[in-house]
């Protein structure tokens, strides 16, 4: 059975190739970032400078920007995604589910550069002219959280980036939630309805507890997407290497600083190495998040 051996050999080789690609990504980013790790040591993680003149580069600001935009995006997107998934599985009339579900999935297919452009030309002016002044006048006056909503209303900044990211990851989370909600056995829901539960009580007391792990997995999947998103963020975050207390302040993320600074980083320079080191850190962060997501989703959605 020579044919069988060859075919199995090719299939196995391709399977191993996937492992090789992942290892090669990790190793190449680490090796590329090694000069920066050597030059700055552990201080690379806490240094807030990004100074090409003095050749001092630190990762603290991009890491902060990456995490804060992704977490804010999750906070904005999860309630909406839950609402959509709930609507699509329990509330919408049967004939309406397919078209609406498809429309939401199409939102996920729009390329990220389009979100960036749309955000830059449409959302930024709206944020700058209406939303941010409104928030400054209202929430900005509130003690404690007021500091988050102050400063000039440029329209760009952390909050705008988080908003664009939220719109981008919304369909991913909503589609995953819908799929896991559909795995709940009908008898469970019917027995709850049978004792007189309302739709919301069935969702809260039956569906959510049953699917808890997978729902968190779907959220982590969205978080993983938000962490590494490049084009959408680069357009609207303001691209300044500074940690500002206000959510309207500009900032940057690992992905945006890599995209912007790369053209001015000659091969072999310490700057390029620092960018690759940032890439390595981003890979580690998103790998952990995606691994957790896969682990949580494994039980329910594997078809």
């Amino acid at each position, binding site marked *: 059975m020579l044919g069988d051996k060859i075919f199995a050999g090719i299939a196995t080789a391709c399977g191993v190739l996937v492992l090789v690609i992942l290892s090669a990504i990790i190793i190449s980013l680490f090796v590329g970032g090694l000069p920066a790790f050597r030059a700055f040591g552990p201080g690379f993680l806490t240094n807030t400078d990004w100074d090409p003149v003095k050749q001092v580069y630190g990762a603290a600001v991009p890491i902060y920007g990456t995490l804060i935009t992704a977490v804010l995006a999750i906070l904005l997107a999860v309630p909406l995604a839950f609402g959509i998934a709930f609507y699509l599985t329990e509330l919408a009339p049967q004939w309406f589910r397919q078209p609406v579900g498809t429309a939401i999935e199409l939102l996920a297919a729009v390329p990220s550069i*389009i979100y960036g452009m749309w955000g830059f030309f449409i959302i930024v002016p709206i944020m700058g002219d209406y939303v941010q002044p409104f928030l400054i006048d209202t929430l900005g006056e509130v003690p404690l959280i007021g500091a988050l909503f102050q400063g000039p209303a440029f329209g760009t900044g952390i909050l705008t980036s988080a908003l664009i990211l939220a719109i981008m990851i919304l369909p991913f989370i909503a589609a995953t939630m819908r799929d896991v909600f559909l795995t709940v056995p009908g008898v469970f829901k019917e027995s709850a309805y049978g004792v007189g539960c309302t739709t919301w009580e069935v969702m809260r007391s039956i569906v959510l507890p049953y699917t808890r792990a997978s729902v968190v997995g779907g959220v982590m999947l969205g978080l993983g997407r938000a962490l590494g998103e490049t084009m959408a963020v680069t357009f609207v975050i303001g691209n300044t290497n500074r940690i500002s207390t206000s959510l309207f302040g500009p900032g940057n993320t690992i992905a945006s600083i890599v995209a912007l600074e790369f053209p001015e980083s000659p091969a072999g320079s310490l700057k390029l190495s620092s960018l690759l080191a940032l890439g390595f850190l981003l890979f580690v962060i998103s790998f952990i998040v*995606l691994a957790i997501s896969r682990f949580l989703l494994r039980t329910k959605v594997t078809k």
Partner: protein
Amino acid sequence: MSATLATTAIPGGARDPSVAQSLSRRRHRANVIVKTLCVLATAVGLIFLVAILGTLLWLGFSGLRLGVFTEMTKPPGSGGGLLNAIAGSLIQTIIGTAIGTPIGLMVGTYLSEYAKGTYLGNAVRFVSDVLLSAPSILIGLFVYEVFVEPFGGFSGIAGCVALAVIVIPIVVRTTEDMLNLIPTALREAAVALGAPKWKSIVFVCYPAALSGIATGVLLAIARVAGETAPLLFTSLGNLNWSLDMSAPMSSLPVTIYQYAGSPFEDWVQLAWVGALLITFGVLALNIMARVVLRPRG
């Protein structure tokens, strides 16, 4: 949560009609509020889609003219089109998909037919799923490190390699899912006829799973056609006409990125046209993929 259920289910509460009534009213009010919020959430999601597509039509359609498809990108103020960007995108997407699809197909076959329950198989499946959602900018950096820097600079072929890496996990996912759906009886029938395993896979399983696999490939094309970040570090972009795969190559997303961020009005206008073309191309591919899959459910 279970407390609410308990109080409503125990007849004790119902003995006092006024208590039972107010409780029931509260529960139904909560239900109506949540339902309304969910309808609103769905409406918001749909509004985003309509707003994005509407903006693209509004701003992109007005700049759409024949020159966009027949002229090269030109310096600001002198018109020009997107021909080199469109051609570059088509070439890189096609070659990238052509490299990635066979590999992804074989990996999917390996996972479904050879590696069920094995340690290596589970590792490959996990890693492929992680790659599926890995930040695409890192795939660009990776190809830059192992391909662009050692082999003499930015090139179209490097862009294809980066896109192929993105294609693989998408094809793997759909191929494995589709092969898993094929009934064992079909495979057994092939084996009973004396077919070796590879023949039963290639001539029985693949045709049976064809629509699903085609869906995966279409989705992969749709995904990489709009990728920008990985191309920034690999094929770089090129404002001139070039079909040389070893030279920097233009692509629609990278051109949109450069033009949209520029201060020139006609460049921004062209960026909107490019955005319109790419978005509707990608959405058409997505809808096609759904139509292809439908006959077999």
